[in-house]
């Protein structure tokens, strides 16, 4: 992660609160958002830290509400479930398609085609 901001080297001093995600990468992702022009450096730090907190939040939530607690595991469906059940994570449902078996999909596709044929 050589692209890291030099600030991150100071993880030894006052360790817990500094940032571990690569700030430059976060900036690139932000800039790829439509219409976003310039971002203040401090705003960038804030966003990076918020993203870290988000990962922790998502992981913990999914684990605590998921079915893997007894077996100490976290699965895709745990995450999908949390995204649907927690309002603040609703924005994730677009990229979290629930997995279904191919044959079920084909069945529903057939049904849709039949419906369209009715027109």
């Amino acid at each position: 992660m050589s692209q890291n901001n030099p600030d991150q080297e100071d993880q030894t001093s006052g360790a817990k609160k500094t940032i571990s995600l690569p700030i430059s990468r976060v900036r690139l992702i932000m800039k790829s958002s439509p219409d976003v022009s310039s971002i203040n450096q401090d705003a960038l730090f804030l966003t990076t830290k918020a993203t870290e907190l988000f990962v922790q939040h998502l992981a913990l939530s999914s684990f605590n509400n998921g079915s893997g607690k007894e077996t100490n595991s976290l699965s895709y469906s745990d995450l999908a479930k949390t995204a649907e059940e927690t309002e603040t994570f609703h924005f994730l449902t677009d990229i979290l398609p629930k997995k279904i078996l191919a044959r079920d999909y084909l069945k529903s596709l057939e049904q849709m085609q039949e419906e369209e044929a009715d027109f």
Partner: protein
Amino acid sequence: MVYFVQRNSSRLFLFFCATMASSSGNDDDLTIPRAAINKMIKETLPNVRVANDARELVVNCCTEFIHLISSEANEICNKSDKKTISPEHVINALESLGFGSYITEVKDVLQECKTVALKRRKASSRLENLGIPEEELLRQQQELFAKARQQQAELAQQEWLQMQQAAQQAQMAAASASGAQQAGSSQDEDEEDDM
């Protein structure tokens, strides 16, 4: 296992398009490096087995989250007639999107980053101001170099003297040895002259 979108066919079409787009490597392919995410997951959920597809998903959720915050902050920024997204805009975005609980910690980190940056600036200027101005430091450096050169020269000279002495001793030893021989070898020399 086959993954599909459990919605109507037009959404499926979009999903496939998205997949194709990302494989051609455009901007939206950007994600946080997997290693960084893995590390964070490990720290948050130590000893938990996390499925590979779940990890992949978290990586993509990160990107999605960043877009979400950026768009919201950008809108807030536009409304405020400013051109650059400021920390204030990001904080308001977090609040309005339901991530208000992050705000305190996020602000703390910002403060920390600023303090660290300030310390580093002070440290570098402290070095410059050890009380010794740069010219003086340069002068001292030159002095040290000159001294070192001198020492080297002296050393070289000593070695040379030692060599000379050794050579002289060798010569003398050889001379006294051949002096003893010379008495008995003049005949040889005459013979050599004839040839």
